[in-house]
């Protein structure tokens, strides 16, 4: 009784506060409120997008604000039933989707995209867009995209005559050569062992192929007990034993490990394409970095062109005062021009087809990887089940330091998945494997219907 009264009291107070807010403007469609997570990307790009939106939509004002802890500001807003019209935040958005708190964007996705003769849906890369489905509907759209790759020190490789490896045996012999030269082969962000997820899952995909990989992402029964996974875990541990990872790396944060890389302490680092942007201030002048996809495993069932990615998402709350405006703003944000601009300014890829026109030189290999990948995958289970993500991180740390055997590691994660499967209060999610959603081969990057003119073919003088 008391609890209900309390909630009622809070709601009453909040509703009273609501009435005093400027929601009238938003309800009339004249204002859009947007909340941005203030992090490495800053706020300036988003403010520009807001400004250009206002210019192309006269009579509409965009109230855009950013905060590193915008989750905490959004929480009471959601509770009071008065969320902003569009947002990007580190929130459990899948749970919000379940709870009916987010607005499904399917209708809007079928409307024309800005600046292209395509629907909004078609303007997205299909792989990333497929990660957003919850029970058949799309509750958020993917925006910034990063590919999991291996970065290397170009100058160092040239000096020593080292070649980019294409197969895993080549990779291992490269590591041996680097070791003999007295340099650490791979820097590693040991304090955040989740970084090894990319290594583990890439190895697994190369060995076992699409089916087992997606069974694992979907946390199906027994998925973590696959023999190829145990083998991949063993490979990871062997890399540590053979000294391929830098000494002392388990205690390094991501900045410290990456500093080692740009300062020449290590020849390579396993990281996403965000590396260049993240280390912008700390990279010494004259340092050249480039990247390559995880090497193929000879005899493995998985296609070696496949790559793992991670994504950011934007959402529109269902109870927002201006849902239409919020969705439209997100559509503007993800237009091809804005996507290209984001890529150029922030040195990050974007989940829009063709948004790589201005990709920096360092990111060019990543763009090629995306173009050639038979499909892409994302470790969605880390987004869906935070507990699993934590246990995975801890398990990887224990595995790499040798505290548990590879078999024990797999068993533990499987146990965690089992606990999650049994837990009635957690919703379960699923992503279709690429073969299931019928995209076929080479479907990640279908040819752009409006390709920019090739050199020599001009549109003008």
């Amino acid at each position, binding site marked *: 009784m*008391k*609890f209900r009264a*309390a*909630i009622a009291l809070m709601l009453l107070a909040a509703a009273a506060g609501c009435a005093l807010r400027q929601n009238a403007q938003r309800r009339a469609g004249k204002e859009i409120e947007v909340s941005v997570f203030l992090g490495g990307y800053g706020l300036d790009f988003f403010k520009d997008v807001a400004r250009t939106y206002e210019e192309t939509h006269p009579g509409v004002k965009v109230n855009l604000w950013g905060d590193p802890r915008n989750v*905490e500001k959004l*929480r009471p807003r*959601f*509770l009071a039933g008065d969320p902003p019209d569009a947002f990007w935040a580190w*929130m*459990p958005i899948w*749970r*919000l989707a379940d*709870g*009916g*708190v987010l607005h499904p964007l399917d209708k809007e996705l079928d409307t024309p995209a800005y600046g292209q003769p395509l629907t909004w849906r078609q303007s997205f890369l299909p792989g990333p867009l497929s990660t957003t489905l919850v029970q058949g509907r799309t509750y958020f759209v993917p925006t910034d995209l990063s590919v999991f790759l291996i970065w290397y020190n170009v100058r160092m490789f040239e000096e020593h005559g080292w070649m980019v490896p294409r197969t895993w045996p080549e990779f291992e012999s490269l590591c041996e050569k680097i070791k003999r030269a007295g340099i650490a082969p791979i820097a590693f962000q*040991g*304090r*955040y*062992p989740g970084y090894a997820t990319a290594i583990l899952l890439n190895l697994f995909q190369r060995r076992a192929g699409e089916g087992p990989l997606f069974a694992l992402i979907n946390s199906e029964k027994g998925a973590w007990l696959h023999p190829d996974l145990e083998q991949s875990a063993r490979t990871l541990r062997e890399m540590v034993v053979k000294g391929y990872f830098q*000494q*002392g790396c*388990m*205690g*390094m*944060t991501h900045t*410290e490990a990456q500093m080692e890389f740009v300062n020449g302490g290590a020849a390579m680092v396993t990281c996403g394409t965000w590396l260049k942007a993240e280390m912008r201030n700390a990279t010494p002048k004259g340092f050249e970095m480039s990247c390559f996809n995880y090497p193929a495993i000879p005899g493995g069932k998985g296609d070696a062109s496949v790559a793992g990615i991670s994504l950011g998402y934007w959402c529109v709350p269902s109870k927002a005062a201006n849902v239409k405006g919020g969705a439209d703003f997100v559509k503007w944000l993800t237009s091809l021009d804005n996507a290209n601009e984001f890529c150029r300014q922030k040195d990050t890829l974007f989940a829009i087809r063709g948004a790589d026109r201005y990709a920096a030189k360092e990111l060019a290999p990543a763009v090629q990887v995306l173009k050639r990948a038979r499909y892409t995958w994302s470790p969605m289970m880390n987004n869906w089940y*935070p*507990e699993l993500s*934590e*246990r995975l*991180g*801890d398990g990887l*740390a224990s595995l790499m*330091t040798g*505290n548990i055997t590879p078999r024990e590691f797999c068993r533990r994660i499987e146990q965690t998945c089992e*606990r999650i499967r049994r837990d009635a*209060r957690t919703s379960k999610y699923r992503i279709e494997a690429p073969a299931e959603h019928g995209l076929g081969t080479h479907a990640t990057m279908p040819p752009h219907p409006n390709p920019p003119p090739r050199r020599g073919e001009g549109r003008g003088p």
Partner: protein
Amino acid sequence: MKRDARRLVVLFLLPACVVYAVLFVYPVISSLLLSLYDWDGFTQQRHFVGLGNFTRLLGDDPIFWTALKHNAYLLSVPTAIILAGALFFAAALTSGIRGARFFRITYFFPNVMSMVAITLLWSFIYNPSFGLLNAVIRPFQHGKSATVWLDPNHIMPSLVAPIVWCALGFYLVLFLAGMENIPSSFYDAAKVDGANAWQQFRSITMPLMWDVITVAVVFLVIGGLRIFDLIYVMALGYPNEQSQVISTYLYEQAFTNAHMGYGIAIAVVLFVLVFAATAIAMRLMRREQVEY
């Protein structure tokens, strides 16, 4: 009661009681109720699960028990060191040496700093590349690579130093107050009887200090259970299994993982633990009242 007096009582009690009832008592009682629900903290939907949160916490949550293990470590090891150190220093400083005041003032200073500041300072000290600690021990390391003190695999022992560094001064002052209350005639009489220094300490100092020591133990144990700032800040908001404690786990479940009811259940269990630990500590340390 006279009207004038009644006026005072009502007027004087009102602010305190209102603030206390609304912002302390009510939330605590709310918590006890909320712990019976499953709630994500974002929507209005909550399901009543009765004691479900508790059975899950105590029966099916290995992370909770790991966190508890860490709390047990942090309420025992630093406590033992602090008690031994504070007693030793208090005895030393009351033995008539010169500069006692200087030592007391110096040892106490860390206690007035916020735990966050202390955490920051020690994260600098522990830094593998430029930290003070590695600089101090490097001559003794004979070329081994720099020790990584905050390696997640053995971070717990590294947390002991900041805790001791911060708290020892406070308990030193506390024990000084207790020791200075003991009349020196007791010690003189004991010396006449032929007791050596250690015997004097054991049979005079300790029993007469027992009450103060009990208070210290209770404070330290409760502190070890409730510790939050050091872990949360040192682990940079990424507490993984190796450094999780109950308070940080609670915060993570409630605010980060959107399991509000569950997080509150953890808080209720924490409260029970504090209560139980206090009762046990006081019971274990009960002795005959020593009158003098």
